[in-house]
């Protein structure tokens, strides 16, 4: 650490010491009285501190990720802190009143269980929330109620580490039961929990009458733990008061140390099996969950003290807790068993423990001098570095004997409790994976990862998981040999997890199982009414293994393993001999998409292990997106075929003899050659590729090229003709045709060569000559020429740079990464389809869409690289919806070699652009990559601001739909576009609409007639609708913005340019058709306006027989 930052730390400490003295008041031991815990007046802390810290942030590079990150964290902390005074209006009084009321509840003599239940039911209509198994009515012990030994407010309300959220904020009120009502052996066989439940019911009975006016009462399981029923009080809203969105939880707790910690160690058994009393000593299966549930009841105050001392000793602690809380929340973790069992309490306790120890040689992992961010990151580091399932960690516990409960263990020896007792092994793996992902993104020095760390919600199932399936619980519960307390849901999920892990092996990377969330229930019944519960299993694929068709089991010689394999798989397991001579147990699955393979395996596993009833309830979600893609079968195949044809073509050109110049290289520049066209490139000998794949050819430099751009373009014709005739000589089945283009742009490329092979592969060849650039640049610089000439040259130069310099590089990068990430190609195609369906494809270049998707794969944070089309697509959509292109560039780092300096320079460039052109008339989107640091290669002429905003708003509404519908989402609904927003719509006659043409082209032909006829060659590159749209765009540049769908393409929509619609005086060069608007003699005489009907009539005339109808919306 630099001396500068050390100085800062010292300063900070003094500046916050004031606050410390203030928080002293919240010291728990000294306050059985709540008054001192009342919410303090809004502290001046934030404003003051940030002022100090802002300057400190200057040198924050070492302590925070970057100064930018630090500033953002400060903003976040300010944003998430709730306004305690406003949010908890009247809470202090309410807590006081409750305390008084509880203390005033009259004591009850010891009653037998049946008497106690009856009394509560008769006099108060309250059911005692006894946990399952229900207590024996004839039990010898008695239930008593006496005044609580202590009442205290605990939790994040006291620590002031709450964050704003949409759910109700809750205040925990701890009621410590007196030690006198318990006996030494009460920890055994649920006796403690029965007494606790009775105690809670008594408090409920005492409060019921007196607070009914203000509060609604209900029971709830604390953190979804069925052993911990609590009373929850929700303020009733009435007309006069504003709705108060908080709840008070009344938690009965045991006095600390009432039971011997050694008895409740995770390795001990506290639930004795009933029938096997005789060999009690022999088989004592540990009951870690049960034990920890008791211990956690005893440790509430102890943990509160721990947190307080941490808060006092370390400045960063509080903010680190808030950061951790936000981080967990965005990842869907909470203390509830159904949401992972790791919430902010566990986070704070873990941080506090790590401040005290946990490192090597009993050193602490965290130092009190750490900044909040350092502390946050170090906790993530701790979570990701240790595997607490395989290697449990124990604190301050020398005698800890490692046992292997199913979940992770972080044993707090001082308090004798496993802090992570509510976690399952899979939720722990998920937490670790998230910690690892976040850590690697925080270590990314190039890009700012603030948003992905704290802002983006990563837990949405459709964006997080590749496949989700639901299955309902079997009606006959499956029993495990354990006698630990376990709900049927927990038991079943454990079994499912085991089966999935064994059956799917490396096909999946990670999975999660979620049970139903527990809700609060009426105090009139003992337990929540149960609906048929079902589990939601989410899976993340490993793209490399998911579609494997043959699984290899153990060899036949290893009898034991083979038998186990057979037992697990049943009749599906078969013995096979493989090519290398080995004889292995194996499984063979029928081929199909990755989803269909996954589904058949899962269905088989569920059926085999849980019966057909459960298998029948299976419901898979996630495949819908992949199915939307046109063309069936493995998509890479047809791209691969075209790539092969291209290599053959390249080789042929290389081998040509008699080319006037030495060939340098042939580079593909077409979406079809980079695996990313919406339509699969399909061709056969009778049916050439409809749209030939673009290829550039470059020769070695030569001084013989003319010194003039126009002359170069003409010379290219001669070259192409020569290449064509040479190719036709080499292979007779090849047909070549020279075509002309850009007839009105003499500076631009004017000719291309169609090369159509006998196999049907077709290429469009253009010549790249690097002298063009120099000549054009010279023309632009030449001040003596006409400005129009210079403008022409400038636009020609930008076209040159895009099509001859950028496109080959871009194509290469995308193609490489499509082979690296098998899902990049389908995701790009789906994303393009989305753009196309919403009629944006004509405005936003393919390359921009490819870059957008590539970003999702190259910089996948906060997730990992997508492993399904669905996640890739939805994450890209989410990015677009959040992308503020006004101030943010899109940066794609293909090679992972960009530095923060590069990013800075791209940012600066964007700022410069915005300064020059604040209205964003020229460049709107800014899409940079390794190849193009200027960021404008593909966004130079379009999309306009209008189109870009439309893209954002469409993406936003799509994301909203995804959020609202969640698992019920129909993927098709995202692709439905409405044309109601447009001013007019041109309907094409069905004969020319995309669908029809495709059908016509794919008509079956006689095999023996499959030859290139003139007719089939003529349709290569023939797209009348495209030409029509191009001409419309050219003719009405300033008047109308046209939108159209590429495929199936039956409509063209148009919007009038609002600038053109306004009436104005007559001018010669208005560039749109007008008609007089004024009336003679009136003020507006001589004013003209846009002649909409004349333009529509022109459009109809130009379209001729291709247009069936023009519908005007307004």
């Amino acid at each position: 650490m630099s001396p500068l930052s050390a100085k800062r730390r010292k300063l900070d400490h003094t500046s916050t010491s004031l606050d410390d003295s203030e928080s002293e008041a919240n010291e728990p031991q000294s306050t059985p009285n709540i008054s001192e815990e009342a919410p303090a007046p809004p502290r001046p802390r934030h404003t003051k501190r940030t002022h100090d810290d802002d300057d400190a942030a200057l040198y924050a590079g070492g302590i925070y990720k970057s100064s930018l990150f630090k500033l953002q964290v400060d903003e976040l902390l300010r944003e998430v802190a709730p306004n305690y005074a406003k949010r908890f209006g009247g809470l202090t009084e309410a807590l006081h009143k409750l305390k008084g009321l509880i203390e005033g509840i009259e004591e009850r003599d010891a009653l037998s269980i049946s008497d106690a239940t009856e009394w509560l039911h008769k006099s108060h209509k309250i059911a005692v929330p006894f946990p399952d198994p229900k207590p024996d009515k004839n039990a010898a012990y008695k239930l008593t109620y006496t005044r609580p030994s202590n009442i205290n407010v605990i939790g994040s309300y006291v620590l002031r580490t709450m964050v704003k959220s949409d759910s109700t904020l809750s205040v925990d009120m701890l009621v410590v039961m007196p030690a006198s009502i318990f006996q030494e052996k009460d920890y055994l066989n649920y006796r403690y929990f029965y007494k606790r439940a009775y105690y809670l019911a008594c408090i409920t009975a005492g409060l019921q009458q007196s607070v009914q006016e203000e509060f609604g009462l209900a029971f709830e399981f604390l953190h979804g733990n069925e052993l911990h029923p609590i009373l929850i009080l929700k303020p009733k809203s009435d007309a006069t008061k504003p709705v108060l969105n908080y709840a008070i939880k009344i938690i009965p707790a045991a006095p600390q140390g009432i039971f011997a910690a050694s008895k409740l160690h995770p390795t001990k058994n506290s639930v004795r099996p009933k029938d096997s009393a005789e060999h009690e000593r022999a088989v004592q299966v540990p009951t870690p969950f049960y034990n920890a549930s008791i211990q956690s009841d005893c440790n509430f105050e102890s943990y509160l003290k721990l947190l307080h001392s941490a808060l006092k000793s370390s400045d960063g602690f509080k903010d680190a807790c808030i950061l951790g809380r936000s981080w967990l929340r965005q990842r869907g973790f909470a203390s509830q068993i159904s949401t992972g069992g790791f919430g902010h309490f566990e986070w704070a306790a873990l941080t506090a423990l790590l401040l005290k120890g946990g490192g090597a040689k009993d050193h602490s992992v965290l130092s009190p001098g750490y900044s909040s961010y350092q502390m946050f990151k170090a906790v993530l580091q701790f979570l990701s570095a240790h595997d607490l399932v395989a290697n449990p960690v124990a604190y301050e516990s020398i005698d800890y004997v490692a046992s292997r409960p199913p979940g992770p263990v972080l044993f707090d020896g001082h308090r004798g409790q496993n802090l992570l007792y509510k976690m399952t092994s899979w939720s722990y793996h998920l937490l670790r994976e998230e910690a690892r992902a976040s850590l690697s993104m925080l270590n990314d020095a190039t890009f700012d990862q603030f948003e992905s760390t704290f802002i983006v919600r990563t837990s949405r199932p459709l964006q997080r998981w590749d496949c989700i399936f639901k299955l309902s619980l079997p009606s006959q519960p499956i029993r495990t040999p354990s006698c630990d307390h376990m709900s049927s849901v927990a038991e079943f999920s454990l079994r499912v997890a085991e089966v999935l892990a064994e059956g799917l092996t490396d096909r999946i990377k990670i999975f999660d199982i979620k049970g139903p969330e527990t809700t609060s229930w009426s105090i009139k019944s003992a337990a929540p009414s149960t609906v048929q519960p079902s589990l939601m299993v989410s899976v993340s694929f490993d793209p490399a293994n998911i579609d494997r068709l043959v699984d290899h089991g153990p060899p036949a010689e290893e009898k034991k393993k083979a038998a186990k394999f057979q037992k697990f798989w049943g009749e599906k397991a078969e013995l096979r001999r493989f090519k290398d001579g080995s004889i292995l147990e194996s499984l063979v699955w029928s081929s199909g998409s990755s989803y269909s393979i996954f589904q058949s395996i899962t269905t088989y596993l569920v059926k085999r292990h849980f019966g057909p009833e459960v298998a029948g309830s299976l419901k898979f979600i996630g495949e819908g997106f992949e199915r939307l893609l046109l063309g069936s079968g493995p998509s890479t195949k047809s791209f691969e075929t075209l790539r092969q044809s291209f290599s053959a073509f390249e080789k042929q050109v290389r081998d040509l003899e008699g080319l006037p110049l030495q060939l340098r290289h042939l580079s593909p520049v077409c979406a079809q050659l980079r695996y990313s066209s919406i339509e699969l490139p399909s061709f056969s000998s009778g049916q050439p590729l409809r749209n030939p794949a673009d290829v550039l050819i470059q020769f070695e430099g030569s001084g013989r090229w003319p010194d003039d751009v126009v002359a170069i373009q003409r010379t290219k014709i001669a070259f192409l003709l020569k290449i064509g005739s040479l190719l036709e000589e080499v292979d007779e089945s090849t047909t070549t045709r020279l075509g002309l283009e850009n007839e009105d742009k003499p500076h631009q490329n004017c000719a291309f060569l169609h090369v159509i092979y006998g196999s049907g592969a077709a290429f469009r060849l253009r010549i790249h000559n690097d002298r063009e650039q120099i000549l054009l640049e010279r023309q632009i610089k030449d001040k003596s020429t006409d400005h129009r000439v210079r403008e022409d040259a400038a636009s020609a130069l930008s076209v040159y740079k895009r099509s001859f310099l950028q496109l080959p590089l871009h194509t290469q990068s995308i193609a490489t990464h499509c082979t690296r990430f098998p899902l990049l190609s389908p995701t790009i195609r789906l994303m393009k389809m989305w753009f196309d369906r919403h009629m944006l494809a004509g405005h936003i270049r393919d390359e921009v869409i490819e870059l957008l998707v590539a970003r999702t794969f190259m910089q996948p944070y906060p997730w990992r690289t997508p492993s399904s089309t669905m996640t890739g697509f939805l994450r890209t959509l989410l990015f677009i919806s959040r992308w503020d292109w006004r101030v943010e560039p899109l940066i794609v780092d293909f090679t992972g070699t960009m530095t923060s300096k590069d990013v800075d320079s791209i940012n600066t460039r964007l700022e410069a652009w915005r300064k020059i052109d604040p209205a964003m008339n020229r460049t709107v989107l800014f899409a940079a990559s390794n190849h193009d640091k200027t960021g404008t290669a593909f966004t130079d002429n379009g999309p306009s601001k209008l189109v870009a905003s439309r893209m954002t708003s469409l993406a936003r509404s799509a994301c909203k739909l995804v959020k609202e519908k969640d698992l019920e989402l129909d993927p098709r609904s995202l692709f439905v576009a409405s044309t109601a927003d447009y001013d007019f719509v041109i309907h094409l006659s069905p004969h020319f609409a995309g669908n029809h043409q495709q059908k016509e082209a794919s008509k079956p032909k006689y095999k023996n007639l499959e030859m290139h006829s003139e007719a089939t060659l003529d349709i290569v590159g023939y797209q009348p609708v495209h030409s029509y749209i191009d001409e419309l765009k050219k003719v009405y540049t300033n008047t109308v913005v046209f939108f159209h769908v590429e495929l199936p393409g039956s409509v063209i929509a148009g919007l009038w340019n609002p600038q053109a619609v306004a009436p104005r005086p007559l001018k010669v060069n208005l560039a749109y058709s007008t008609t007089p608007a004024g009336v003679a003699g009136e003020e507006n005489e001589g004013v003209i306006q846009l002649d909409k009907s004349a333009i529509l009539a022109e459009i109809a005339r130009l379209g001729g027989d291709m247009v069936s109808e023009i519908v005007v919306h307004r």
Partner: protein
Amino acid sequence: MSKIGEYTILPISIPPTPAYPKHTTHTLYLRLHAPKIPTENDERSLFVVNVPIDSMVAHFRAVFASLTGAGRVEDVTFEHERRCAVPSREVALVGKASKKRKRGSEGTEDNGVAELPQIWDRELRRSGSTAVVLFVDAKSVKSALKAVRKLHKSSKKEKGRDGAWPIWGAGIEGKVAKLGSARYLAHQRLQYPDETVLKMNVDAFMTEFNRMEEERAKREKRMRNVPDEDGFVTVTRGGRTGPARSEEAEQKKTEMAERERKKREELQSAGFYRFQVREQRKAEQGELVRKFEEDRKRVGAMKEKRGRFRPER
């Protein structure tokens, strides 16, 4: 209303089509042609603003035939046809050559400068563009304008009946190339011209181009020896030694400058003197402060957009 400023309004009635079955009119604005640089034909020319996008010479012939009788229109020149089509370096230098590169309508085809074969069977006009209609004599222009005024008067009398306006495309059916799919089919055909024609075309272009290059070289050579009126000789490229390309020279120059700069930088960055080290450190610090200020500004801007720091729900 028959006039806006100097322009006479001529509404053209557009017959309805199946796709757009509405009866519409298209407004033309007419005036006498008066360009900045007058020509001898101005008197008998009419300047037309806002021509329909599918205008052809035949259309205007038909329109004015219905107004003043057949055979009065000699030619029509559309806006972009008057613009110089091939602006190139040579064009700027050699005024004479530029004339030869103009569009075919100027009748320079026989000079041998090859235009590429047309790839459309008829051209489209930009929306709202202009044209100049050349009549056979000045009298016809006046009578055309008069006829328009007369039509206006008669239409005023019989309100709602403007069937008297000239009808677009009347009487030329079959004489002009069809629009719609036929146009794009023709384009598909024309886009791939015959190879021999193309070859000849390129050859012709290159011969002409080479001739001009030679001419230019000769002229430059001449200029080398001719002092101008002040007695100076213009220095031009190429002399006794073979001609060097100017950009090569430029490249060399920049290379030299680059090398020089690198050398200097190396010396400086070595931090030989104490003041250099001090300055460097100062600069670094300044950079840090600058970056921080930038970051602060950025965060401030983000703050303005609400929700930027609010975790998503």
